[in-house]
């Protein structure tokens, strides 16, 4: 790797219980519509308030799931820097996010590990909340470099194992 980038965060910089910096964002109709179109989601509840209110029974248009995934990725890589490589994310959608809401993303490191290939990972629990209400829960397993010359993106094939080995591979256990 060239010296063009040095890691912002190494695995050893991270410990269970660490809190990530919170991110607050005021959601507008533009946020919702731009997010839906950026994720090629043309469904009207994400751009047509009349449809959302009268057909879906929601109070307004609302953030779509793929765009929330993009928000979670941005939040995590703001913390890790570009060396951070997402391995696995799980979402549980609990409520909707509407224009006028101020959403807050908060994360706490649950654990760190070095897998059997030598790759470092942190598992982070992230919430997306509006006020006191948690709208979406996310758990992410993200690879972090162990040394300044380590690059998780260079891993291929058997050297990249995005799911923790403790996870039972039967799909019923996923999520």
């Amino acid at each position: 790797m060239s010296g063009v980038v040095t890691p912002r965060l190494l695995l050893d910089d991270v410990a269970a219980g660490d809190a990530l910096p919170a991110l607050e964002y005021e959601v507008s109709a533009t946020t919702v519509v731009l997010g839906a179109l950026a994720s090629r989601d043309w469904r009207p509840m994400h751009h047509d308030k009349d449809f959302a209110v009268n057909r879906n029974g929601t109070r307004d248009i609302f953030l779509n799931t793929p765009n929330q995934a993009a928000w979670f990725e941005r939040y995590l890589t703001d913390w890790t820097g570009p060396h951070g490589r997402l391995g696995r994310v799980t979402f549980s959608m609990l409520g909707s996010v509407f224009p006028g809401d101020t959403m807050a993303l908060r994360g706490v490191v649950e654990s760190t590990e070095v897998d059997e290939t030598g790759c470092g990972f942190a598992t982070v629990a992230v919430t997306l909340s509006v006020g006191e209400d948690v709208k979406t829960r996310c758990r992410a397993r993200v690879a972090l470099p162990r040394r300044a010359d380590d690059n998780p993106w260079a891993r291929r094939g058997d050297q990249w194992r995005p799911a923790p080995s403790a996870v039972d591979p039967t799909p019923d256990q996923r999520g």
Partner: protein
Amino acid sequence: MSAGSAADDLLTAARELIGKEQYHEVGEFPVERGYVWTSCASVENGNPLFWDDEVADALTGGPIAPPSMVSVWFRPHHWSPGRTEQALPLQVHFDLKALFGLPEAVMTDNTIEFHAPVRMGDVLRTHQVLRSVSDEKTTKLGTGRFWVIDVVYQNQDGDLVAVESYTGFGYVRDAAA
């Protein structure tokens, strides 16, 4: 035939699909950078991996797409010439709703595992695999069944790019609800 045995037959029919690859599809367009930048702009993602070629060259051997965009490359255009029907993503989910006669459904959980990075010019392909169907369950939403469906993404070289698992609950609202 009793109602119980009819329900058993439906469950048997559904479970025979478990593990089988269904609905092989190829993306309508190659992965392209304009969409990457639109996605990053939508969430104000300034990760230099997606904006700075030097960083992308150093870390990922050239520009890649944000991993969380993997499903974006499969959503069809809102219109395309000659197409008469809008394709439904996650068709297995709709098949199960129809098979069991469950008019309502929600997605309760979504897990994505990311494998090989998605690169500019990739044309991704996908297929769906039913992983499980539960016995009948009653929740606060109604009575129905949970199922888990994997969507497997590969690139044009056959490399695994991602596996997305959806847990769905198809149900009938309870009369008292």
